[in-house]
């Protein structure tokens, strides 16, 4: 067998179907950053290679893609499906295959517990921390958490595992802070939401949390406008906070805000991608206007963390040669992308500082709020917001313990 010279990453991606817009931006960002790293010689001289496989966001095709990609090029050392269904489908296979998977901003929140899920990395932030941060933000906006008492918050959600994931956190916080949580589900794909928004109008809440995905978001914003609900009241989840969600809503989206774990803006690394790749015709996105869009930047951020993990792992296991899956896992578990490191990469402030450990595969939990001005997203919170982490930690312990019991796993840190 020829010696492996590349650092090979498996990308079960999706570029067709209902979620194609998000998929193409995200994977485009990843590939752009990889290309950029390779242009400058790779990670300590190790080139990154990758292979894509179309999953159509479909679990069974995703699993097939994973199985196909994982053995290529001497074995995949990292995988990122950007789909909850696919991620669940491969979750059980990871420890046997010894391939770490990141779930950047989606999937099971309790997977941040590295003792139970050694190969799963919900990097940067999870749904639970996001939900907690949202409430924190709303509290701050009202002038303190105590001001939330008696307020009404409508929770409009994608009626699926994704939309139900934050409910334990929201329920706990509503009890704790005394606000009313009005839960309104939207049946996927959510192309019609008239009745939901009428209900919201009827309830007249102080805030609306929009926990949507895909086409549901634009429809929500449009329907809000049609029903005369100020967009300023609406706060979206980060899967409802991209250009793909606001552009189709047109003017209706002006004033709408959403969570994000990237600060919108310009960064040296993005400039480089622009210059070195797109100007040379090597960019991955077909449409140049999408460079630096939310999904694109999210992809770049994911790739940055991976490359940092490679670097970290190489430092331990030997510079200048690719690491295997187990070593990559170690790298991901010992990430420390602090501000200094971000500056060096040219992405200072683009994402929150990330520091992982065996206990905390998430590494941050910090988010920002951004607002759409009709043309682009602008950050409205200067600092990263972190919600009630004690609460989410408690939930995390409980839930992962239950999983461990069900699966007969003895929680322990991997060596």
């Amino acid at each position, binding site marked *: 067998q020829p010696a492996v010279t590349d650092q090979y990453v498996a990308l079960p991606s999706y*570029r*067709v*179907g*209902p*979620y*194609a*817009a998000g998929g*193409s931006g995200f994977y485009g960002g990843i590939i752009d950053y990889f290309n950029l790293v390779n242009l400058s010689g790779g990670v300590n001289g190790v080139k990154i290679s990758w292979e894509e496989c179309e999953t159509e966001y479909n679990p069974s095709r995703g699993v097939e893609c994973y199985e196909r990609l994982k053995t290529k090029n001497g074995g995949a050392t990292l995988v990122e499906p950007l789909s909850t269904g696919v991620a669940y489908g491969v979750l059980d296979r990871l420890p046997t295959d010894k391939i770490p998977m990141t779930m950047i901003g989606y999937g099971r929140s309790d997977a941040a517990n590295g003792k139970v899920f050694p190969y799963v990395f919900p990097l940067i932030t999870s749904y639970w921390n996001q939900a907690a941060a949202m409430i924190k933000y709303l509290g701050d906006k009202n002038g303190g958490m105590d001001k939330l008492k008696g307020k009404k918050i409508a929770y409009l959600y994608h*009626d699926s595992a994704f939309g139900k994931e934050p409910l334990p956190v929201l329920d706990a916080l509503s009890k704790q802070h005394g606000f009313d949580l009005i*839960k*309104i*589900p*939207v*049946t*996927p*794909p959510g*192309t*019609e939401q*008239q*009745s*939901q928004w*009428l*209900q919201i*109008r*009827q309830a007249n809440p102080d805030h609306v949390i929009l926990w949507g995905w*895909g*086409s*549901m978001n*634009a*429809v929500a914003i*449009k329907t809000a*406008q*049609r*029903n*005369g609900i100020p967009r300023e009241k609406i706060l979206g989840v980060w899967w409802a906070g991209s250009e*793909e969600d606001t*552009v*189709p*809503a*047109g*003017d*209706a989206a002006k004033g709408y805000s959403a969570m994000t774990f990237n600060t919108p803006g310009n960064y040296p690394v993005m400039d480089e991608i622009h210059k070195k790749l797109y100007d040379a015709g090597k960019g991955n996105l*077909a*449409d140049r206007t*999408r460079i630096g869009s939310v999904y694109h930047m999210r992809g770049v951020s994911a790739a940055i963390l991976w490359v940092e993990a490679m670097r970290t792992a190489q430092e331990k296991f030997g510079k200048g040669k690719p690491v295997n899956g187990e070593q990559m896992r170690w790298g991901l578990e010992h990430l420390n992308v602090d501000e200094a490191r971000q500056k060096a990469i040219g992405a200072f402030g683009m994402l929150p500082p990330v520091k992982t450990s065996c206990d905390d595969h998430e590494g941050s939990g910090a988010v920002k709020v951004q607002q759409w001005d009709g043309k682009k997203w602008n950050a409205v919170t200067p600092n990263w917001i972190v919600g009630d982490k004690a609460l989410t930690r408690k939930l995390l312990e409980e839930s992962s313990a239950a999983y461990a019991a069900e699966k007969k796993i003895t929680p322990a840190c991997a060596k």
Partner: protein
Amino acid sequence: MNVNFFFEVLIGGLLSGVMYALVAIGFVLIYKASGVFNFAQGAMVFFAALTCVGIVDKFGVPLWVAIPLTIVVMILLGIAIERVVLRPLVNQPEITLFMATIGLAFFIEGLAQLMWGSQVHKLELPIEDVPSEYLMNKFNILVSQFDIMAAAVCGLLVTALALLFSRTKVGRALRAVADDHQAALAVGIPLQRIWAVLWAVAGLVALVAGLLWGARNGVQFALTFVALKALPVLILGGFTSMPGAIVGGLIIGASEKLAEVYIGPLVGGGIEGWFPYVLALMFLLVRPEGLFGEKIIRRI
């Protein structure tokens, strides 16, 4: 219970129903004229809308130039579908044709995204989707002016197509085709030509639906899903009736909204996904061919 709110829900529902009907009309058109249950109608709606905004975005022409261009594209598409898909499948069982249209749906979806990319677009029609001031002030009822226009367009389309079917020789021929392809050919009905025209017309109906839905929800892949909303409308109204599409739309729209608002909270909400189907099913149990559908002849 707040009466005003009730009426808002009701009216909102009725108008949503009209939007469903708009898509359902395309189905009825094809079904009534060829016995084909055209699953690609949703894809055609998407294709039409995306082509239209794609032309606007790519070539920077105004909408009123893009629309005629799209019409040409839709006509060509209709002709191509007849030529490539339907002609070789004449006289095949309904289910075969149905499956072919599913294949067609995939093809069209792929084609649309290949031509215009997978990103989402906005589509601004001259009429804005905001509550009508007049109705707000006069009756204190919230109705989007956009919806009112959509309703008018839909009414117009249905009337025109219903007249086509009931008053013309072509209409009669189309119904004959739906009954028996072979016999229709034998009496000299130019099946091929008629189908090409018909699919072109269905393409235009899809364009209208696509523009209205696109302006409402943005032009994106999810437009293909509106077909799912149109199905209960279709079975309730009857596959073969134009007016049925409208009446079915109104019933489905209104009742699904009322159910979501008044029953939904009791059972955890999100019942809009299945409620219309169950409702339509109830109607079907009483009238197995929908409210206005042609009676299915079962005889030996």
